[in-house]
């Protein structure tokens, strides 16, 4: 059941926004002034990883191959990282089984109790540095994430603090462009000034922060952590309510000076959990993500397609078993179809980024996009020999248009390289025992 259906405020709020978008917001965010220097980071998760005999990109070839070919138009801006290990996951034994390793992918830490990440994920480290001039330090998008345990939890603000993804583009629209955390506006009155000037949410938030402070001292550290996470989340919202640096609303000039900040079109809500709607939800999430960048609303985003133990059956591709059943010996002709479809989604994302002029180049020149997945061989659920991609660039830091084969090298080395690309001078990322340092060949 779509959550959009359950939210009686959503439709009218969107109608209201439609009216507002037409007249445009007059305020320009302080963020827009920094437009030229905006750097952005995107990580996209694709479930189930590579399979035996997959057509992997070859060095020096003129195409990324039969599976990744849809990304060929951007080949000069893509590096394939082939043969790397999710070393912290492979070492975290006995731990949990391979179906639950998502927290490892971007945190490179040993999991806590087999349930939660041991530290922040790469995107969150980067967001701390480049997220300050935007409304949201980071945004998490998702498409049909069925499992909410270790199979589905990709992004972690910190140890044991998971950041769930927005899986409903209509709710996401409302949150990102609808100023939901701004003054309360009653539904059904498009364009009308809010009649109630008193903001119940702001008042409640202030009160709650005060109360949290009264109970924290009474709690043991392990319990306090959970209450602290509520406090931190409220503080983040408080900053937004106070008009922290943020982007202009739809209709206003874009952050990068390349035309108007676009009002994305999301159309009529649909059942976001229905498998046939998976492609439409994916497209909308990508549209919202790029629009959020253009409008200066965020600089860091993730997009999570499903989860480990992929439950999508890809009916629009004529595939009948779920992605996970395919990895357990379903017809092997079908898995390449699935991966090619994901490559097409990347092509769509990269195309959208490249279509936005920014400075002397395009938004893709200021955006690093990572393709991550959990298995190097989905048939054996191996956490080694993965194929990941790093795309786009930031200040020309990355050397693109190549294949880097590094059997046995830890993905943590990629993570620290990306940290360096964003000006974070760390020598290691995550568990230092599984990180040897930046990948020299990836640096221009």
């Amino acid at each position: 059941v779509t959550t959009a259906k359950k939210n009686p405020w959503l439709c009218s709020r969107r109608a209201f926004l439609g009216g507002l978008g037409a007249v445009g917001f007059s305020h320009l965010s302080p963020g827009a002034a920094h437009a030229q220097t905006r750097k952005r980071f995107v990580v996209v998760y694709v479930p189930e990883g590579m399979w035996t005999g997959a057509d992997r990109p070859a060095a020096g070839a003129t195409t990324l191959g039969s599976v990744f070919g849809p990304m060929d138009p951007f080949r000069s801006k893509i590096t394939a990282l082939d043969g790397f290990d999710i070393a912290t996951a492979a070492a975290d034994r006995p731990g949990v089984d391979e179906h639950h390793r998502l927290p490892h992918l971007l945190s490179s830490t040993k999991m806590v109790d087999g349930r939660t990440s041991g530290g922040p994920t790469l995107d969150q480290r980067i967001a701390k540095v480049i997220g300050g001039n935007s409304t949201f330090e980071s945004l998490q998008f998702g498409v049909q994430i069925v499992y909410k345990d270790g199979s589905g939890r990709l992004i972690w603000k910190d140890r044991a603090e998971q950041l769930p993804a927005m899986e409903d583009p209509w709710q996401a629209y409302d949150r990102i462009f609808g100023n939901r955390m701004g003054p309360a506006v009653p539904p059904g009155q498009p364009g009308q000034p809010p009649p109630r000037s008193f903001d119940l949410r702001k008042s409640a938030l202030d009160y709650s922060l005060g109360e949290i402070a009264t109970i924290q001292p009474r709690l043991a550290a392990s319990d306090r952590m959970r209450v602290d996470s509520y406090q931190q989340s409220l503080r983040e919202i408080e900053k937004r309510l106070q008009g922290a640096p943020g982007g202009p609303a739809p209709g206003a000039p874009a952050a990068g000076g390349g035309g108007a900040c676009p009002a994305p079109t999301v159309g009529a809500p649909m059942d976001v959990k229905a498998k046939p709607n998976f492609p439409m939800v994916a497209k909308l999430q990508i549209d919202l993500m790029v629009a959020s960048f253009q409008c200066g609303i965020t600089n860091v985003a993730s997009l999570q397609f499903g989860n480990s133990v992929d439950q999508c059956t890809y009916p629009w591709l004529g595939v009948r078993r779920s992605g996970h059943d395919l990895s357990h010996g379903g017809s092997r002709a079908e898995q390449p179809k699935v991966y090619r479809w994901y490559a097409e989604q990347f092509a769509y994302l990269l195309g959208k980024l490249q279509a936005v002029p920014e400075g002397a180049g395009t938004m893709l020149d200021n955006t690093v996009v990572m393709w991550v997945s959990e298995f190097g061989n989905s048939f054996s659920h191996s956490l080694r020999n993965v194929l990941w991609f790093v795309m786009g660039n930031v200040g020309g830091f990355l050397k693109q248009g190549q294949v880097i084969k590094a059997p046995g090298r830890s993905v943590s080395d990629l993570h620290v390289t990306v940290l360096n690309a964003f000006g974070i001078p760390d020598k290691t990322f995550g568990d230092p025992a599984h990180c040897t340092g930046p990948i020299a060949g990836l640096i221009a």
Partner: protein
Amino acid sequence: MAATHTRKALSRYLPLALLYLPIACVGSVGEAPAGPEAPPGGPGPTPGGPGPSPGNPGGPKGPGGGPPAPGAGPAACSGNVGTSVVRRLTHVEYNNAVADLLGDKSQPANGFPDDGEAGFFKNSASVQSVPPLLAEGYLNSAAQLAERVNVRELVACDPSAAGCVADFIQRFGRRAFRRPLKPDEGQRLQQVFENARTKADVETGVRALVAAVLVAPHFLYYVEVGGQDSGTPGVKKLAPFELAARLGSLLWASLPDNELLDAAAAGRLTTREQVLVQAQRMLKDPRARAATNVFYEQWLGVNELENANKDAQLFPQFTAELVEAMREESVRFVNHVIWEADGKLATLLSAPFSFVDSRLAPLYGVSVPSGQGFQRVALNPAERAGIVTQASLLAAFSPAVETSPFKRGAWVRTRLLCQELPVPPNEVPPLPEPKAGQSNRQRAEQHTSAPGCNSCHTLIDGLGFGFEQYDVLGRARKMDRGLPVDSSGEVTATSDINGKFNGGAELAKLLARSEQVRDCAPTQWLRYALARPEAPEDTCSLQQLKRSFASSGGNLRELVLALTQTDAFLHYRRPEGP
């Protein structure tokens, strides 16, 4: 903790063609359950002795099913309890709480990001952080609920009149926080009201008050710090209001009512007998049905049905309506067994009837007059017995195209037998592709008959093969891919029901008479009630609960009441550290 996670993981995800080299198998599950003749307390950890390790909370243990040991009354556990956890309201509890507080049944938490999962239960504290998306949900929901409130009805006096709002703050705050307000807490809420009243009007003041209470940590979290010393080092008795809150959560998945809070305030929630009186009263309330359904849906995995996925071409009848009917059948059946029939676990597992409507009738091969909703029907006893063979579970634990003996077998092993499956090793060799002319079972056997694999796989395969007579929708079938279905199976590694059987109904009847299964139900209830896996210090309480459940003849109504009498439920142990 990892083990709890894995238990769920394997039961849910075990794929069609799992081929794991079971290096760790024998060690993990082979801590063989002791026979039923073992003395109480003998096979399992003895009180005060070493309990199950936290990493292996569900390992087979002695059934403890004999007659109560001398002195095994409620006081026998010396107030011992595992480390308590501060957790937040689950989304179900949030929805129920705002319904109780405001009469608003809109279930706003359905729009929140999902509760985390760990083990089978969605109340596990270990995954309960509050990310910004959830905090926004709390704030938006609070504001929207407050906007909708009829202020006059809610405060039940003229809010401009002297004392009206101050009284309301005490009344509303006590209910929402499950305890009386401290003076300074009342003052701060009064300030919220005054602030909004000054800037807007009196009505807005009340709305601001309501919104504030709904985002207060005292409302959203079960904050426990304990009351009087218990006599056991590190352990306190729960303070009466903390106990009231636990009872509300356990029995109603909501807030305590005023009667319960009054009892706590008056010192009438102190003795076990007083707790029992309240629990008995609360169980008679309709809210208890919905609340205990939450447990049964999560324990049995009926809630997994929402993630079930079938190939649309092969199974076009697998519509949202059919899924809803499957779920409702199980809910009605569980409710009936527990509240209207004998309340026995054995009945739950093997009753020869169920509740079927016209949507489900073709699936079960029975006829039900359409337009009359669900009817109690007798099912073919050769095919069906109890919850074990209901379509909801058979469909929930099946992939999209072929059945999975592994998923279904793991369901029995982890959820009903309370045993864990070992973590499979890394780097499993790739599997052979399916061959034509091979039944699903033959294909599965091919993967798992290899030496080294089968010692693990017999733990699940022998159980799961018995369900081959049902397709991925739960329909009975005689043929699979042109070959006769083979539903012969074997129960292994249990304390009392090892042996061969044929088909799901036979398996269900074995499970229904198993002492190991009978001991599993209290274990799962305790995990749910404490929102954490059992710890060694809970062993005595758990053994006591098992004995009490056994002596009630496996009565599930009595089990919930007995749970409220255990030291583990009644006590608090502060986490170590600062």
